[in-house]
């Protein structure tokens, strides 16, 4: 079987930049919606944490105690919420410091990657 020609994932996946302020606003709203969705999933998966723990600026690892097993669990839960594949383990592998990843940053990433698909 001949191999299909490989595409450059970087080129294929680049989302469009906001061209107008309305577009920028729409993206902002998209990020806000995404943050709320992520927080909802986190509340469900990390149900033993107090409600005050769930903030946009919270670090997933440092503040919410997300470990590698929870990352796997969250991946499945986020897939359901965002209706697209989420391989959270690889997101963590691509940040310099896993403790730096916040809820908002994850939401922004999920929202922007959604625009590209």
């Amino acid at each position, binding site marked *: 079987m001949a191999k299909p020609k490989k595409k450059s994932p970087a080129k294929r*996946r680049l989302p469009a930049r906001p061209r107008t302020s309305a577009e920028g606003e729409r993206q902002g709203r998209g990020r806000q919606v995404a943050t709320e969705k992520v927080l909802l999933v986190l509340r469900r998966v990390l149900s033993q944490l107090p409600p005050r723990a769930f903030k946009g600026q*919270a670090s997933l690892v440092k503040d*919410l105690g997300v*470990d*590698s097993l*929870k990352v*796997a669990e969250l991946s499945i839960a986020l897939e359901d919420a965002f209706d697209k594949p989420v391989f959270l383990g690889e997101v963590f592998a*691509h940040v310099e410091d896993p403790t730096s990843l916040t809820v908002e940053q994850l939401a922004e*990433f999920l929202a922007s990657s959604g625009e590209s698909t």
Partner: protein
Amino acid sequence: VTLDRPPFTVEPSKHWVTLWLDTPGGSVNVFGPTAARQLGALLKGWARKPPPAIVLRSRKRGSFINGAGLLYAHAATTPASARRVSAPVRATYEALASCGIPSVAVIEGNCFGCGLELALACTHRIACDDVQTRFVMTELRDYSFSPLFGGTYRLPRLLGVRAAAELVLGGATWSAREAKRRGLVDVWLPSADERALSASLAKLLAIPPQRRKPALVQRVPSALVELQPPLRRPLYAACARLLEQGARGSESQAAQREAGLFAASVTTPSAKRAMSFFFIRHMARSAMLGSSERAPGERRLVLDKDFSSARLRALLTRQADARPPLVLGGDVPILEPSDRGLAGGVCFPLGPSPGGLCELVAKGLDPRTSEALARELDDLGFEVVRTSPEEDLLSRTLARTVIHTLQAELRAGSTPAAIASSWWAFGFTTPLRALVGIAGAQGPTSRALAAARPRSARVDVSAIDRLCAALVTTLKQFLETRALSHPVQADLLAQVLLGFPREEGSLFLRSMREGLIPDVYGMGRLSPRAAGRYRSGLSVRGA
């Protein structure tokens, strides 16, 4: 601060101070930087006024310590960053080992990798029997990097090189009883009964720790290295050297050698891919079981007397559980690969050994029974894949795909020896003869494949690509017909049944990299350029 309690709780008593580990927010204990910092600070504080003894225990059911934070290892990009991230945790292990205070690790539940190494840094070890008390050095076996926290010199000094190699290179899993038999723990208890435990602790702490005489055999059995496929051999050989050198001489030099090999091995593409497979494996588990945690008060499954499969009963009820049983009746047969999967049951295509594959055919089973069984088998250490096949068991169909594809290679002019060589050298670990058996394949070509032995280390990459493409097609059919519900389960099935090399990540990950299939895991979104441009404040490599 949202996780407002530290991982360790300190409980002083007259004869010892108990350190209870309960990683906040986690379903299992992780001895990561936070726990290391806290233990380090406690040890520093005790330098002036030491307690009579330290007892390390876990408050998490089923987990003594499962890891040291794979997320950190996965994110380390250079040997320097791997050393930097791991140094504080390493320092705590050394501080515990050299603090001069008698210390006892009371192990109940998973004692994996760095957990086993923490137990080794203690002066004594007690193992409480439980289905989840298992001792495994997971680093090399599961993640393709070398141990980091003293395992390569404390294990050979305690057990001898041969037994240490069995754990580190051979990936052996030891039960509590086996750990006692082999000298890894000083005391075996049938359960974590507090009275018996206190008596054992008092007795153990009354005598000085005894170092076992190292065994006479100070060489790693060569088969543990030489039988590995070529892609694994350099790291296995380097680890074997560490074990042999670590058995004697200066501990600090051994520690330096160990740290060097870890830093070099954890940043290789093979290790990164193996770590990616960890997430796939646990995503498959989450997709099947939902939460990784048991609900409070949830009871362990105990099958009642109406449960008709004697073999399954023997397998599942080998551990007594003092809690009130969750009684389930009904019939869950053990299926053979040749059985049709129309009725519910469980199949262990490669044999019922923990760590092996269990295909749980959910069709026809009461959902509650199916879920309880899945959890129980998962607790026992099986890799459970829940399936709903239309006809044959998925294991059998997948094994048939392998055999049929390889038979096509034979018809195209390849030889059984060349195929066996490619299979082994690529890193598949399930013997072809086992797959011929599972597939129920008959005839001369099947017999030739079953009997073929590798003669060279040459990988026919085109043949492997064709095989992967055929396997992906079969797995896609499983997903399309809802015999499997998620791509990660398909990947897990292929990995465990075929022994797909962890250094490749998984079948789907490799196929995506090679452009054989589109991006089923959304990995393309992680290209540094795309991610870096659109994630404000998130530091992305290469962005």
